[in-house]
């Protein structure tokens, strides 16, 4: 969430939880079993809210958050599933439309848009400390 920390002074951020990508009753991934992220596809808004809350608590997720309704209105309007990034400008127009995740989910592109407008935020490279020779 480096992009959020770097640009939250210039732009607003909103995470929108949409229907699950890899629930246990559809296309479950081995990595989710390994990470203990196993949920069935929610059938009610309460189930969706419970998963969204699990997610934000587990990762101490700092971004403002909203949950899509069971008609999947946000997902359908933005072709969002399974994951996708957008930037909407001050005039309410699409300024950036990311590709469909995971293969074309590219936060670096959204970051480049923000950097183009507000300047690049650089981070000093982490330097490894060499172990002392005895």
């Amino acid at each position, binding site marked *: 969430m480096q992009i959020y920390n770097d*640009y939250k002074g*210039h*732009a*607003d*951020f*909103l*995470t*929108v*939880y*949409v229907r*699950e*990508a*890899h629930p246990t009753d*559809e*296309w*479950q*991934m*081995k990595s*989710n079993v390994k990470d203990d*992220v*196993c*949920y069935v596809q929610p059938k009610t*808004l*309460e189930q969706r*809210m419970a*998963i969204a*809350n699990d*997610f*934000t608590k587990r990762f101490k997720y700092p*971004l403002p*958050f*909203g*949950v*899509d*309704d069971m008609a999947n*209105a*946000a997902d359908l*309007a*933005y*072709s*969002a*599933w*399974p*994951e*996708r*990034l*957008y*930037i*909407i400008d*001050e005039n*309410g*127009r*699409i*300024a*950036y*439309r990311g590709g*469909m*995740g995971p293969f074309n989910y590219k936060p670096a592109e*959204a970051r480049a848009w*923000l950097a183009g407008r507000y300047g690049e935020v650089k981070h000093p490279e982490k330097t490894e400390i060499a172990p002392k020779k005895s």
Partner: protein
Amino acid sequence: MKLFLKWALGVVLVLAVVAAGAISYMAGSPKDALYMVRYAFPHMHRGTLKVGDDAPDARLLALDGQTRFHIRERTAGRPLVLVFGSFT
């Protein structure tokens, strides 16, 4: 003519095997490839939104389970970065 059909069938089979192999590689396994075809492929060219279009609106529910708000309420004054996704 028969020879042509044999060759055409052979080429189609080879292409099908190559495509299945490529999708399996991308997805991680043949089983995941089947799921990818079933769940992901129908979404790949979904939607017609493009840069410059008016951003659509949708009503969301906040994590408190009570507060409802619209995406477009959040677009006044500053750019809005929308991050769509799920837990899994």
